[in-house]
């Protein structure tokens, strides 16, 4: 399986994603934001970080990068595109997934482990994951997912919510919402479910010596689903 990780100026989880993808069997390429052509890929990842310093609005400058047009085309033709953290912010700026990401409710950066409940398994990202709940890791300042009521209805009608913040037993309640996201939304699909944007970092959960191993479950499953 071939993957591509895009490096924008200010990306800082690009190496971590590269390490994770390779660990689980992807042949990964690092792709520079100013390139026009996307290498042949089964999966494209927009990694976390602070592209363009998050100075204008998180993800907005990066969403206009040269490489993005080929990524948008790739996604529109059914290609798998995953945006993590800042990558999610870039995805919402391109319109590939609906909604926006506001500053966290308490106006503070949060770095910690969280639990997320898988809402939909009829997609290539989560199909065949045995667990209902995964322990992931978040590290962000702007992860507060927001959308209009109409959008929310559409998202729910189409089953586009990928994961919600919850407790270890899968209970989705306000007290387990780290950043104020609507409906505890941690990740969201496009309508066709080939594009996934999520705030949590599965690439930081691939080693028992670090934060935990539920990211390993995610990546192992992902590569199998793509085969």
């Amino acid at each position: 399986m071939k993957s591509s990780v895009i490096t924008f100026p200010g990306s800082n989880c690009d190496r971590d994603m590269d390490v994770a993808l390779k660990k689980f069997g992807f042949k990964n390429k690092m792709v520079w934001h100013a390139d026009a052509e996307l290498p042949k890929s089964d999966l494209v990842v927009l990694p976390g970080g602070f592209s363009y310093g998050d100075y204008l609005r998180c993800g907005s400058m990066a969403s206009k990068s040269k490489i993005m047009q080929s990524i948008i085309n790739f996604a529109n033709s059914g290609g798998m595109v995953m945006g993590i953290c800042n990558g999610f912010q870039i995805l919402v700026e391109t319109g590939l997934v609906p909604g926006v990401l506001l500053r966290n409710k308490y106006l503070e950066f949060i770095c910690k482990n969280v639990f997320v409940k898988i809402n939909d398994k009829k997609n290539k990202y989560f199909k065949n994951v045995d667990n209902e709940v995964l322990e992931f890791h978040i590290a962000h300042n702007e992860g507060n997912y927001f959308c209009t009521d109409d959008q929310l209805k559409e998202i729910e009608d189409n089953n586009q919510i990928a994961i919600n913040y919850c407790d270890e037993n899968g209970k989705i309640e306000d007290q387990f919402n780290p950043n104020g996201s609507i409906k505890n939304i941690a990740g969201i699909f496009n309508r066709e479910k080939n594009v996934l944007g999520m705030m949590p970092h599965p690439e930081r959960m691939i080693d028992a010596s670090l934060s935990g191993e539920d990211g390993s479950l995610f990546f192992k499953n992902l590569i199998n689903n793509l085969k």
Partner: protein
Amino acid sequence: MIVNEQVAVDHGLKKDEYAKICDLLKRTPNITELGIFSAMWNEHCSYKSSRLHLKKLPTKGKKVIQGPGENAGVIDIEDNDAIVFKIESHNHPSFIEPYQGAATGVGGIMRDVFTMGARPIANLNSIHFGSPQHKKTKNLLRGVVHGIGGYGNCMGVPTIAGQTSFDSSYNGNILVNAMTLGLVKKDKIFYSKAAGLNKPVIYVGSKTGRDGIHGASMASASFDEKIEEKKPTVQVGDPFTEKLLLEACLELMAGDSIIAIQDMGAAGLTSSSIEMASKGNLGIEINLNKVPCRETKMTPYEIMLSESQERMLIILENGKEDHAKKIFDKWNLDFAVIGKTTKSKKIELYFDKEKVADIPVNTLVENSPMYDRKWKKIKLPKKNKIKKEDIKHLKIIDVLKKILANPNVCSKEWIWQQYDHTVMGDTIQKPGGDAGVVRVHGTDKAVAASVDSSAVYCWAHPLTGGKQVVCESFRNLISVGAKPIAITNCLNFGSPENEENMGEFVECVQGIGEASDYLKFPVVSGNVSFYNQTKDQGIKPTPAIGGVGLIKDYKNMITMDFKEVDNLVLVIGKTEGHIDQSLFARTILDEKNGPPPEVNLFNEKNNGDTLLKLIDNKLIKSAHDVSLGGIITAVAKMCIKGKKGISIKKPKYLINEIEYLFAEDQGRYILEINKKDFKKVADILNKNAVHFDELGTINENELYINDKTKVTIDELSTSNKSWLKDYMGK
């Protein structure tokens, strides 16, 4: 502008210093030259009050590749890997503008590290605030934490450990010390020594603006009521540009284009160009019209004294300009050839085709003032005797809960959750433990780092305090299973012109020197911050020690959380019952006098080395050093972290229970071992003449001393975790 003695005094120079400048130049300096002298001769850059004493610190060792004098220290961690590290203060700017002050402190220290070719792999910090009741404290704390996070998070470097304290002596002068560790191959270390004639001098990074002019001079003076006016001297950070600068520099460093490189930190272009020239025994000629400027009509004076951040000065090999420019263009950074090296041994500056400065380098560096300031020795205070009636009504559990909730002991989760501590995917011990630990990427090795200070002990008796901080750093590294290698120090003191403050400095440095010498834990880098004082009120002497150690196989790392019910808990190191200057004495008895606990270097070394042996033999399940709050506080934290309890049996000493549990005697650790290993452990401890007590056994969920003295771990956890969150209103 005409330069005279008054103008020099307004620049922070003393009258005799101005006379010396005129004498060295054999003429009156122009305003640009005066600015340059004032920047190079202030306390922050010249170390004029401290140099004499810093010379006495041990700086050499088998593992030391580079000691003080470069951008940062470098130590050998084997297999051609080296760690570059340093701690630096950003106290004055952080008080004036907490967010930017703290952020640029973090940015500055990371630049010091990657200037040497190392990729930063971990950040730490030591931050100190006034009394929680002081009206400024909350906002300063919030601003500093946001600033540290804002910069470090954006750079993608994990913040893995730190220290936060509160004391009313910091009401008018907070401390913000930032430390960075970087990883480099031993044969790819870069230095700041210029070499070769007619080599191009290159400016890269951000453009130069008017921010931070005279920042270093501001940091070399006391505060008064006009402090708000100093805001323009605080630099403004741009972590995004620094991230680009990091990647661009490392890309250029992969080749062989660079002769020397130096970041523009305090005193900006002035100190960077002069340091490179001085180390290479060369001259440098700069055309200031070529310096990329952010604002229009900047004068030579402003260009030379700006402390705009995220800039570097590089001396390149001839002919490598195009190659280097391509890399900086790719990263969207300014790149300009601004001058060349010369044989004149002078700094020669041109602006609009006129020569605007012409100063022999040695007058700025070797001839800079050095003072043997008067200082006063501080005697060891007399011991207090605890009166039985003062303590007999105290209930141990109530006292313990108070101590766990004390601002200087309580959980700092509210702070470190705002720092990205997991990016780079190698943080195997996150904040909240004895030391932070990161793996050396792609290897089995790991590096542990801790930052410590004990202002109260240093204030009570600077010599003992200085020794104690080094020992505490040593213990924190050993507690996670790391072999201590070297330290960096950030020496935060009041005014050196005050004999008592100067005495505190001299004796703390002596204590640091004695301990680091004995423990073979040399000082490889550091920074001095004087004038942490408002009017006549100085801070408590606060030397902060950043220690670094190596774990050869990261799987042998130790954490402090209790692991398993029925395991045995031991205390190693003897408890004499030293209560003076303990948290117990100061907060429960309200007794502020007396000596700090005695430091016995032999015991420190022997106990630490022996614990490392136990760890090597895989006999230790968890470990934690005993510090503030004594044995019971240490044990309670291990219970809270491990969500387990302990049944304590006080050993049959002659001292009473309170003294045994809350005393802050040094050189002690709490260890968890499996019962079946007891004989093996006891044999090793006995063989090495290490005193130990059997403290108790781990249980499910209760700290139990007897039927009347017990408490659930949940309750202790609440005491420990609520104070800071409640204080910050969350």
